[in-house]
């Protein structure tokens, strides 16, 4: 009897017990800090001990802060350069590996995907030495293949900082995009190609009118995810250029980290955090809007 009551009790309250640990932690360590970071953005701070209410001072300062806007500019430049290269290269790789005649497909797939297993910090440590001036592997290869460029490229200078980050980022994530495109390509209906061929469409026409519509959802996804990820880029430039980061390599999150946790103003860092939220939200909405419109056009 007692056993039955126990069973009935656990049957009734099971779902609450199951979500309880998550909900408690979610409230304490996500919702509460989130709320706290809103209120903190109205304070001036010197370490966690000294908080002074400052009203909208942080946001007013943010709008005029040249270092912040430089960080925004750097981040946007990185995002654009990265996506413009990553998406076509990933798609190209996927198209090649999707060929009927390719040998060792699994091996190649793994060869391109494997950098994804390496974390950003470790990639940055490796590329810090690969890109070393004169004797680094990248410069050696450049000197050997394109003598006009030579081995003298200084990847850590203000001018070359962005290409250096993009290069490391591409090595890391081209294979990731490729895997998604490959999955999308394999789900495109084969009959459509045959129908197009019967209608006399060449390979190029088939690509634009059969393949592209077929992979558009994945394309949209990768662009959106790539944008959101790029806006938050931090470890790669932070470790790559350690100990001295050139001003052209300071990203939004790096600036947030520097003001909040190196200079100790967690109030201003909160304001930067919310500015980042706003920017990501706006860019995502614009992208969803644009890709949505494109889809309307296609019909």
């Amino acid at each position, binding site marked *: 009897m007692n056993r039955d009551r126990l*069973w009935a009790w*656990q*049957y009734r309250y*099971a779902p*609450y017990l*199951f*979500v309880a*640990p998550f909900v408690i932690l*979610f409230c304490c360590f*996500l*919702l509460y*800090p*989130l709320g706290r970071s809103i209120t*903190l953005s109205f304070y001036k701070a010197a370490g*966690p001990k000294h908080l002074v209410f400052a009203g909208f001072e942080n946001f007013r300062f943010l709008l005029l802060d040249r270092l912040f806007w430089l960080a925004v500019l750097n981040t946007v430049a990185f995002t654009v350069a*990265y996506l413009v290269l990553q998406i076509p290269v990933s798609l190209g790789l996927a*198209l090649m*590996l*999707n060929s009927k005649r390719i040998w060792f497909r*699994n091996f*190649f*797939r793994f*060869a391109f995907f*494997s950098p*994804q*297993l*390496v*974390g*950003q910090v470790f990639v940055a*440590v490796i*590329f*810090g*030495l*690969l890109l070393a001036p*004169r004797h680094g*592997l990248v410069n050696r290869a450049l000197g050997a293949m394109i003598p006009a460029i030579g081995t003298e490229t200084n990847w850590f200078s203000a001018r070359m900082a962005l290409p250096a980050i993009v290069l490391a980022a591409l090595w*890391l*994530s081209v*294979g*990731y*995009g490729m*895997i*998604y495109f490959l*999955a999308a390509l*394999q789900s495109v209906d084969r009959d459509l*190609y045959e129908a197009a061929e019967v209608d006399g469409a060449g390979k190029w026409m088939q*690509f634009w009118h059969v393949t592209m519509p077929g992979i558009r959802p994945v394309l949209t996804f*990768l662009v959106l995810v790539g944008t959101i*990820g790029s806006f938050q880029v*931090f*470890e*790669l430039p932070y470790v790559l250029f*350690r100990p001295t980061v050139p001003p052209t390599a300071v990203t939004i*999150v790096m600036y947030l980290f520097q003001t909040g946790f190196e200079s100790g103003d*967690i109030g201003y*860092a909160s304001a930067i*955090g919310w500015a*980042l939220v706003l920017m*990501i939200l706006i860019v*995502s909405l614009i992208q969803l809007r644009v890709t949505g419109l494109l889809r309307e056009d296609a019909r």
Partner: protein
Amino acid sequence: MTQMLPPIEASRAIAKAPKCLAPSFTGGSRMTGWAGFIVLHAVVICLAIISLTPFFWLICATFKRHEDFFTHAFLPWSEPGRWTLSNYRLLFEQWPFAAWMFNSLFLSCAHTVVVVMLSSLGGFALAKYRFAGKKPLMLIMLSTMLLPSQVLLSGNFLLMYRIGWLDSYAAILVPGAVSVFGMLLFMQAMRGVPDELLQAGRVDGCSEFRLWWEVALPIVRPMTGAYTLLSFMGAWNSFLWPQIVLQTPTKYTLPIGLTNMLGLPEYQTPYGVLMTGTFLSILPVAVLFFILQRDFIAGLATGAVKG
């Protein structure tokens, strides 16, 4: 840097190695026969070599002496006498590398176990039960999905300071146990668990907890494998939050420890030792990937629900 996002499909696609093939574009009918075949393979092989070279270079670098580090691109091949294992010895003798490795292993394993358990339990409840407050809970969860985690840094830092968790692993593990993404992922997967199976279990007197552990979890096993790999990699590579929270060098994790080796003045940086540390830091993730890859295939092959 799509790293924090789910290569679930990706790892599945790798594991499954689908046999069905869509028609190709490169090497099409116009580029006839062998020419197209050879061009295609030449291009792919070149690109694969570029993609794998940094790994090969890294392995070579661990056997290079300090004075050879930049004078030889890979290894002094003609003089095997100059190859050395001293980088490995120095790494463990002069740096608390063993401690960093242990810390990283402990934190990543603990994080993975906790987050997989909590997410699957919560996801099970969301997928298979109706309960008060489910709708609002899911709405709040979904609305936090888009927020970049960096906006939480200040608030969480202040919280950790107030409750005295700074420089402790609690500050990493406890907030890290919350994964909205994991909850939604498991919810999605567990919707596929047949209700009749659960009902049959209840008739047999099975407790709800056992239904989760013995019925639902085994069915979503391939997804669990993928998510385990993801969580482990996330924790293993995480840098920003541990860097803020941890202060004692012996408590450092691998990314933080290695980054601090870079902080030395330029010509003092022990390149070979640093590369050895990096190589050993990448190894565990690679091993786990290979283990779980087989797990996927087994999970997919046996099929969860029979009959």
